[in-house]
C-alpha cells in the first residue's frame, strides 16, 4: 500500500485558525480507518483566506482543500478527498491567485517543510551560497548591485551600495543585522519567510557575511512573533550542524555565526539605529546620522542592516544571476515586490509580483473586493506611516517613484483596505495616537507634536473651532514633517494629511478633494 501524503501548513496564520487541530484530526481519522497516511507540515501558500489549506499529494500534483476546519475532516475522508468535495480547490499550483504570481523570493514558500534542511536543499536551497563561496567578495557585492535590489524595509536604498560601503570600511570586525521587527499593520511577508522558509534568510545572511567580511550576524525579531523565532532557531541549529554556519562554512575556511535576538514590543526598534541600540542592550532611542551604520553600526563597527526580504532575495540573485532578477520590474524598481493584502478584503494574502502592477488590479483581480461586500473607500499602503489613497489613485503602478509622485509610499508593500464605513478622521487620530505611544522621545516635534495632534483632531471631530483647528493641524504636521529626526515623526503626517486632503467631509470640511489631490 502506498502512503498517502497530506500537507497541513504550520505557519502561524494557519495555526491561528486551527491548523494543528486539523492535522491532529487527519492523523486520528486515518488511524481509526486503518489508512496509511503521512501528515507533513509545510509553510503557507499565502492564500490566507483559504487557511487551513490542506493539500493531498496526487500524481498530477498537490490537490487543495480549504478552508478546512477540524470538523470537516471526517467528511473529507468519507469523500476520499475527491475533487467533488465542496471544499475542493483543484491543483493548488493552478489556482489563479497563485499561478499568476511571480515568485522569486517566495519560490519555496508553502511547498517545502520549514523544519527540513534536506527539503530546502532538494528545492535548490544553498545554491546561491555555493556560488558565492567561489567568488571574490567584491564580485558578490557587484552581483547584488547589478540586480537592482533595493531595500525592502521601506526606504528602498540600493542594497549593493550599502554592502559596498561595509566591504570597503576598514577593520575586520563587522556585522550583518537582519531587521525582522516588522511592526507595520498590514505586513506579514517577513513573518511568512521566517516561518515558512527560514533557511533562505539564513543563507542570505551568510552570503552577506561572506561578501562584506563579517563573521557574525544577528536577526532581531519582534516579540510578537514567537513562531518565527522558533523556526529560525531550528533552521540555525540545523545549518550549523551540517556545516552551513560556523567557523568553516562548507569547508571554505570562512566563518559565519548567526544568533536570534528578541525584541520587546517597541515599534521604533524597527528603525535601524534604534534597533542597533536595542541589540546592544539599551533603550531603543534613535541615533543621529551620520555616522551611517555601514561605517559605525553595531558596537560601533561597520554593519550591514537589511530587512528580511532584502536578505532573503539574495540567494536567488546569486543562484540565477543579477540579470535574471533585474529583468523583472519597471523603471528604477527592479525585481519583485511581495505585496501583503490585508484588512477588509475578500482574498487577503501574500502576492509576489514584479513591480508595475496597479493597486486596482491587486484590490479586485487578486483581492476580489472588500470582505464586507461594501464599496472600498480608502487604502493605506506602506504601514501606519503610509498615506491613505482614495479611488482616484488606485491606477497607480506599484513602483517606488510613482508612489513618491503621489506623496505616498510603498514601504514594505503592506496594503490595508477599509470599506465605506471607515471614519477617516478617526483613523487620522489613530495615526497620531500611535506616534504618541511609540515615539522614542528623542525629539520634540514627534514627542510633543503627536500628543498635540491627538488633541487637535479631537477638537476637529467634536466641532470646536473647526476651521482654525484644521489650520493648526496642518501647521503641526508641517513641523513634524520638517523637524523630526526620523521617519516616525517625519511620516506620521502622511496618513493624517492624506486623510484630511482626500476625505475632508470626514473632518467636517467641504469636499475639496478635486483640488487637493
Amino acid at each position: 500500500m502506498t502512503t498517502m501524503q497530506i500537507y497541513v501548513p504550520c505557519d502561524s496564520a494557519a495555526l491561528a485558525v486551527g491548523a494543528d487541530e486539523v492535522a491532529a484530526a487527519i492523523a486520528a481519522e486515518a488511524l481509526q480507518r486503518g489508512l496509511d497516511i503521512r501528515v507533513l507540515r509545510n509553510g503557507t501558500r499565502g492564500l490566507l483566506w483559504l487557511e487551513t489549506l490542506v493539500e493531498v499529494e496526487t500524481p498530477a500534483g498537490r490537490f487543495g482543500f480549504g478552508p478546512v476546519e477540524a470538523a470537516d475532516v471526517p467528511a473529507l475522508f468519507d469523500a476520499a478527498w475527491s475533487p467533488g468535495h465542496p471544499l475542493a480547490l483543484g491543483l493548488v499550483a493552478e489556482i489563479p491567485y497563485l499561478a499568476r504570481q511571480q515568485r522569486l523570493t517566495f519560490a519555496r514558500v508553502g511547498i517545502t517543510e520549514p523544519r527540513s534542511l534536506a527539503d530546502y536543499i532538494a528545492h535548490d536551497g544553498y545554491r546561491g551560497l555555493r556560488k558565492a563561496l567561489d567568488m571574490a567578495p567584491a564580485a558578490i557585492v557587484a552581483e547584488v548591485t547589478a540586480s537592482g535590489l533595493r531595500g525592502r524595509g521601506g526606504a528602498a536604498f540600493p542594497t549593493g551600495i550599502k554592502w559596498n560601503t561595509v566591504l570597503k570600511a576598514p577593520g575586520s570586525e563587522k556585522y550583518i543585522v537582519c531587521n525582522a521587527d516588522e511592526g507595520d499593520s498590514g505586513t506579514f511577508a517577513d513573518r511568512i519567510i521566517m516561518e515558512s522558509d527560514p533557511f533562505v534568510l539564513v543563507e542570505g545572511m551568510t552570503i552577506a557575511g561572506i561578501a562584506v567580511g563579517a563573521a557574525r550576524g544577528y536577526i532581531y525579531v519582534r516579540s510578537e512573533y514567537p513562531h518565527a523565532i522558533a523556526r529560525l532557531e531550528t533552521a540555525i541549529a540545523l545549518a550549523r550542524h551540517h556545516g552551513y554556519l560556523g567557523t568553516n562554512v562548507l569547508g571554505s575556511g570562512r566563518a559565519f555565526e548567526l544568533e536570534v535576538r528578541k525584541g520587546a514590543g517597541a515599534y521604533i526598534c524597527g528603525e535601524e539605529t534604534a534597533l542597533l541600540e536595542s541589540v546592544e542592550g539599551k533603550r531603543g532611542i534613535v541615533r543621529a546620522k551620520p555616522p551611517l551604520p555601514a561605517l559605525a553600526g553595531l558596537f560601533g563597527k561597520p554593519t550591514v542592516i537589511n530587512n528580511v526580504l532584502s536578505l532573503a532575495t539574495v540567494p536567488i540573485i546569486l543562484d540565477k544571476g543579477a540579470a535574471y532578477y533585474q529583468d523583472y520590474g519597471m523603471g528604477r524598481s527592479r525585481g519583485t515586490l511581495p505585496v501583503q493584502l490585508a484588512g477588509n478584503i475578500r482574498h487577503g494574502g501574500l502576492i509576489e509580483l514584479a513591480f508595475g502592477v496597479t493597486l486596482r488590479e491587486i484590490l479586485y483581480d487578486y483581492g476580489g473586493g472588500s470582505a464586507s461586500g461594501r464599496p472600498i473607500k480608502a487604502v493605506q499602503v506602506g504601514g501606519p506611516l503610509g498615506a491613505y489613497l482614495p479611488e482616484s489613485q488606485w491606477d497607480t503602478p506599484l513602483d517606488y517613484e510613482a508612489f513618491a509622485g503621489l506623496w505616498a509610499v510603498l514601504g514594505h508593500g503592506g496594503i490595508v483596505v477599509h470599506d465605506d464605513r471607515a471614519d477617516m478622521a478617526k483613523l487620522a487620530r489613530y495615526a497620531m495616537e500611535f506616534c504618541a505611544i511609540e515615539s522614542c522621545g528623542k525629539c520634540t516635534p514627534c514627542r510633543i507634536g503627536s500628543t498635540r495632534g491627538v488633541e487637535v483632531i479631537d477638537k476637529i471631530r467634536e466641532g470646536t473651532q473647526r476651521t482654525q483647528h484644521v489650520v493648526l493641524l496642518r501647521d503641526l504636521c508641517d513641523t513634524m514633517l520638517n523637524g523630526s529626526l526620523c521617519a516616525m515623526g517625519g511620516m506620521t503626517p502622511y496618513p493624517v494629511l492624506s486623510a484630511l486632503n482626500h476625505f475632508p467631509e470626514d473632518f467636517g470640511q467641504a469636499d475639496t478633494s478635486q483640488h487637493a489631490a
Partner: protein
Amino acid sequence: MPTATVSPAAVSPVVAAAALAAIDGILADLFARLGDRQDQLLPVLHGLQEGAGYIPPERVPEIARHFNLSLAEVHGVITFYHYFRSEPPPRCVIQVCRAEACQSMGADQLLEHAQAALGCGLHGHTADGAFGLEPVYCLGQCASAPALTINEAVFARVSPARFDALIAGVLADDARTSAMQASSVEVTV
C-alpha cells in the same frame, strides 16, 4: 532550563519568599549562561520574564550590579519596552490587536465585546485576577483580522462568538487543572 509557575494568588509572605527564591535560581542560571556583556541585558530580562512571568522590581538592583549598570539604566530599559512587566501577570493574558487592518474588520467592536464579556477594561484585569486585557499593535495576522492572543497563542478571524468559545475553553481547562492540583503555587526548578 528551569521553569517556575507562580500563581498570581500567591499572597502569603511564605509563598512570596518561595517564589522569589525560585526567581533567584532562574536569574543565577541566566547570569551564568549569558555572561555580563550589556548586550545580554535584554536576553536576561526575557529569560526572567519567561521563567517568572514578570521582572520583579526587587531584583532590578541585582541585575544592574551584574551588568555594572546604574539602577536608572536598567529601570529605563525595562520601562521603555511594552513587553516587559513589573508585576505578575493575570493567569490568562488576552492581547487584542488594535492596529489598522484589524480595525477595518471590527477590532473595536471585538474589544468592546471582550470588555463586556470579561467585565474588565483595557489595561485592566478581572476582579478574580484570572483574565487581563491588553492592547497589541499588529500580530502579523492582518489578512485574517481581527486577531488576538491568549497567553501568546495566536487566534485570527475572531468574531465575538469565537471569543466567547475561546474564553469558555480557557475556563474549562482551568477547572480541569484546579481539580488536578489543589496547591496554588507550583514550582519546578
